[in-house]
């Protein structure tokens, strides 16, 4: 019977990470960019779990919890920023926020 080998998980994670990375660079809506960051984080989580299974090491799964916690904290801060921006402007376009241009 056909089984999903470990490499399948890794390939899936790579695809998801690539989608996230490209989306982050291409899209201008901060909310969408934010979701792309989440995609990348979870692709990494998937990699950790896959490697944990492959190497028979529980450490891989433990790290995922840390990543989730950090991601949750990041979501709180990031969403707060986005909400603050949305209150000031009608639309949310990341390229309009370029005060740091040299």
């Amino acid at each position, binding site marked *: 019977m056909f089984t999903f080998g470990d490499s399948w998980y890794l390939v899936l994670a790579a695809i998801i990470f690539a989608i996230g*990375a490209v989306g*982050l*660079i291409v899209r201008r809506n901060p909310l969408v960019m934010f979701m792309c960051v989440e995609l990348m984080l979870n692709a990494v989580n998937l990699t950790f779990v896959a490697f944990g299974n492959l190497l028979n090491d529980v450490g891989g799964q433990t790290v995922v919890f840390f990543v989730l916690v950090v991601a949750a904290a990041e979501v709180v801060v990031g969403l707060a920023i986005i909400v603050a921006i949305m209150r000031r402007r009608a639309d949310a376009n*990341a*390229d309009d926020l*370029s005060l*740091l*241009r*040299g």
Partner: protein
Amino acid sequence: MELIWLIPALPVAGFVLLAALGRRIGEPRAGAIATLAVAGSFVASVAIVFTLAQEPEGSRQITQTLWTWIPADSFQVSFGLLADELSLMMCLFITGVGALIHVYSIGYMKGDPEYARFFTYLNLFVASMLLLVLGDNLILTFLGWEGVGACSYLLISFWFTEPANATAGKKAFVTNRIGDFGYMLGTFLVFVTFGTIDFLQIDAAAPGVSSGTATVIALLFFLAATGKSAQLPLFVWLPDAMAGPTPVSALIHAATMVTSGVFLLTRLSPILEAAGWANDLIAWVGAVTALLAAGAAVAQNDIKKVLAYSTVSQLGFMFIAIGSQNYVGALFHMITHAFFKALLFLGAGAVIYSMAHEQDMRRYGQLRRYLPVTFATMFIGWLAISGIPPFSGFWSKDEILAGSFQVKPAGQLLWVVGIIAAVLTAFYMTRLMIMTFAGGTEKWRTAAPESLPEAPTGSDDHADGAAADHPAPAHGAHDDHHLTPDHTPREPSALMLGPLVVLAAFAAVAGLLNLPFADQLHFLDHWVEPVLEGQSGLPPAAVQWVLALVSIAGASFGVLFSWRVYQRHRVDPAKIEQPVFAHAWYIDDSYAEVVGGPGEAAFQGVADFDHNVVDGAVRGVGGVTVRAGEITRRLQTGFVRSYAFGIGAGALAVVVFAVVRMSL
């Protein structure tokens, strides 16, 4: 004697008081305070001299260190005063003649709107000069040296609203700065050579120094002296310094400033002794200066200019004496010159004052009838400077000439140049006296100002004080500045005549200080002897008698020839007063030509080099940085997405690098 500090402190106190409250103190009292300060300083000097005179010879020396001025590890400069025979002698006539000039100024500056400011500067001038002579090291003396320079600037351009006066002040200051650079280099070299700048330690160490080093040190300090004491090539400031009020001229020429160069070289006589040919150079520069300046004085029409060139010429005599290591002669002439030149200047001031501030001698005449006291005192001054015995100038000038006669190479030639200068001195001083006090009154009664050509460089000496003598209101009476045909000269007040009489008495008898006849009569000689090194003796008595007779004959010839020209009109004065004399041998003009033409171009070149190359390098560095910043700032787009791309690309690059490294 802990009171040495009083000598400079009193004029300093007067200066501080007048600078702070001068305007409030008001007209007569400000002058009185300034005069009292200098007179008190004179009393202190006299007291110290008497105390010292009771000490045995050789221990007449007091140093008083007030505080440490510049403590810098091994380089310690103390604010210390050195009172010995030399410096106290200087103090005596600086404060004595200075006090008389202060008294005179009370009368001369009457009614001047800046009365208090004048006396403020005058006190500072005297204080600086006292610091110069009393300083026990080269740096403290330099403080006085610069103070004198600054005060001369302030006083020469005292009436600074006239552009010519302001320019004259600047000229004096800048010319003196050239000499100051010699002073500074000399000080550095002394410190490197001896490891000290203290006069006593220098004197002690001087015999051990190599002849070459001593020569360079002597030349550097001689350069300094040519600036302050108005010798070739830096004498040009002094004739222009006549722009100041006349008492200032008297102070600069007689008591302070110009004597400082002679003093400095005398103070450093132990170095000069080892300096070899530098002494010959000093003597010859002095001789040439004496001759050229005496020639220039022959053709001046401004009464103060005659006296100014005369001072340059007399200072030349002092440098002849220093170069022939006849320091006593230099000091002797410095003292007698202080008396008779102060007298002549103050007398000229009295004439100018009574003639509505006209300075052109061609418009004077027959003044002896109007100004009998001024005439009588100036008559003594004239005899003294002309070298007619028994007046003071004869003795000192004769001692200098006798000393120069036996200088080793070409001393006789030096003596001949000196005699010629002395004859010219007698000639131009007689000319001054005849033009001013003899002749007819028609010169100012009839001649309109326009009919006379302007003097080469006319300096206009006028004060509002001129008006005080006249019934017209003091201010806004411009007619009083010009000599009118109905003008009647009047003798100035007793405040101005008193100093003249005192100075005339000293000018007559100051020769007693050092009569040549017997060793017991060499008072000055014995007094300063312990301070001096390498004093060379005079020729034998028989030779001295002959030289003295020749110099008397020369002086008489100068007087009589001048009498023939200007009183008897046997010779046309125009034949003698050549333009080359009137323009002082075109020395000043050629300086102006060179400095104004090629000199200015060269300095413009230096300025351009500084602006384009030095500043250009600095600006270039700045410009490159700015341009680099302009290029790199484009990287900071402000777009979050491009930053994210940068982070991603960077991470990828790190991974690629790591993988490639591992696979190698």
